């Protein structure tokens, strides 16, 4: 069954003076999903959000909601609500009136406003604070008011513009779980904007990685992390090590790649041909380290180098290793029972390799 997108952007371009903020962008957002727009600052993610909300009109292109053209509809007539990074609570109203504002604008009757606001306050767990003014609330509480003020209107799509970035680390972790719970409980489509890849990966159903007004890749967190389409996505989403190599030999579904004179076997998903220059990407946790001369049980090829830095992190040990060819790589080692000698010392000689299939070839 083909899923119908609730929001559809087609060829949307937005310029601010000479700067292209969004560049002929296509995006489908599906009913009930948690979609994250992830990218560095200035990549156009917030502009996309503001176009969906109606605060910006695209220069070219169209936006649809459930098949209806939405492009020139003003924000107050769209069934979409936004939670802003700064919360932007109304300072002269108490919590209750802040949350009730949307319903009052719709001229709902007093009784149903009372009921709906109370329900929203329950959902975001703010009971007892109805009469407080925004300046009497903590950052986390203000965040909850901003959420309640949006969801009380039962929007088809809830837009969240970096709502957690003003909170401290602990509270942020808590609110991430809270947002996930809200998403499940309400069943509303969430479009979330962030520059924090950890946040994006842990919360989203799908992630759209943006750069310079375009979507570089869109997919599930697993796809984005493990099978990046290009260097930008690979580098932006988490740490990654990059090796330059040349294809020597192609077989059925696999290929031999020469990296620093060693021949590594890699998966061949992209019709590699002999003589082609490729980059082989490896996440820090996918690289295996073994003491020199004993490379991974003595099988297969390995690159050798020496340990520069050992960073003990509790759950893991991070190693910075300089290869003999001069490259610096970053490796994360997990403690596990069958490999107890993960503790390396500075200056120690080591071999590095990886299991076939864990690499990404671009």
């Amino acid at each position, binding site marked *: 069954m083909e899923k119908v997108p609730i929001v559809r952007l087609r060829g949307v371009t937005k310029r601010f003076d000479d700067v292209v903020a969004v560049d002929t962008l296509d995006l489908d957002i599906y009913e009930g999903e948690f979609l994250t727009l992830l990218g560095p600052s200035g990549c156009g993610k917030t502009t996309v959000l503001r176009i969906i*909300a*109606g*605060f910006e009109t695209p220069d070219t292109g169209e936006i649809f909601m459930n098949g209806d053209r939405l492009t020139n509809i*003003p*924000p*107050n*007539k769209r069934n*979409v*609500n*936004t939670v*802003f990074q*700064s919360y*932007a609570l*109304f*300072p*002269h109203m108490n919590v209750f009136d802040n949350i009730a*504002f*949307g319903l*009052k*604008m*719709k001229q709902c009757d007093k009784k149903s406003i009372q009921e709906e606001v109370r329900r929203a306050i329950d959902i975001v767990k703010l009971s007892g604070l109805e009469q407080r003014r925004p300046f009497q609330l903590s950052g986390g509480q203000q965040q909850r008011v901003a959420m309640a*003020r*949006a969801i009380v*209107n039962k929007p088809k799509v809830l837009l969240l513009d970096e709502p957690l970035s003003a909170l401290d680390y602990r509270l942020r972790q808590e609110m991430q779980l809270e947002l996930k719970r809200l998403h499940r409980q309400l069943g509303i489509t969430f479009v979330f904007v962030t520059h924090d890849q950890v946040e994006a990966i842990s919360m989203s159903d799908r992630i759209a990685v943006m750069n310079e007004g375009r979507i570089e890749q869109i997919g599930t967190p697993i796809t984005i992390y493990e099978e990046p389409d290009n260097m930008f996505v690979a580098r932006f989403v988490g740490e990654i090590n990059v090796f330059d190599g040349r294809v020597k030999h192609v077989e059925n579904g696999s290929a031999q790649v020469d990296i620093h004179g060693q021949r590594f076997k890699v998966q061949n998903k992209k019709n590699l041909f002999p003589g082609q220059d490729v980059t082989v990407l490896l996440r820090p946790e996918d690289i295996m380290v073994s003491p020199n001369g004993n490379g991974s049980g003595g099988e297969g090829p390995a690159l050798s180098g020496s340990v520069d830095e050992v960073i003990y992190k509790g759950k893991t040990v991070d190693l910075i290793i300089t290869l003999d060819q001069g490259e610096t790589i970053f490796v994360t080692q997990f403690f596990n029972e069958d490999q107890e000698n993960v503790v390396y010392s500075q200056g120690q000689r080591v071999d590095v390799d990886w299991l076939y299939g864990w690499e990404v070839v671009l």
Partner: protein
Amino acid sequence: MNRTFRYLYLSAIYVCLYLPILILVIYSFNASRYSTNWQGFTLQWYSALFSNTSLMEAFRNSLLVAFSSSVVATVIGTLAALAFYRYRFWGRQIMSSFIYVVMMSPDIVMGISLLMFFIILGVQTGAFTLLLAHITFCLPFVVVTVYARISGFDRNIIDVAKDLGASEMQMFRHIMLPMIIPAIIAGWLLSFTLSLDDVIVSFFTTGPSFEILPLKIYSMVRLGIKPEINALSTVMFFLSLLTVTVSHLVIKENR
């Protein structure tokens, strides 16, 4: 020691500020017409004041001009401040800095230039030109007061209101206006007092047919200070004290 000195210093300042006013108030009850020594308590200057029809008419005129010019200046000034805050248009920067220029320019320059302006246009100076002049010099104070307050607010608040379904008018009524009302009141009061005691600009822009209090007092004082003037000044002092107190309470209430 240090503490005593602090209080002495502070008292000295307040004595300098309020002693002259206090003397004025006391002398308004002094029975002596000319001398500065105390001749006994009397209310006769107050009754003389209220029966002095030309002085009372000047007072009424002053209140009328102060009230209407401050109201008009507040409406225009608030709208101007909103426009500067809300919209990006060509010349916005220049226009907003010229507001300050008007505020800073000496009264004498403003008075003469307005007079020239009215003469060139061939307008007879009188109540109407006086009103226009007062609106003109009050306007920047309203713009600056209101703008200072709105520019302190999170711009996203406007977007949020729209996002939650408010039309432009609803947004203004339910969000903008309640947030800036203290500044509007403050701007209005400022205009009112500025207009009420202005001498220099008024001197150039009013005609012989329309007399206002500061000019009347000025011309009377040239012939020597009369006790009625003391009584009048006392009335005005307590009037302004009352407005300041009321405005303070209103602003506090609104916060």
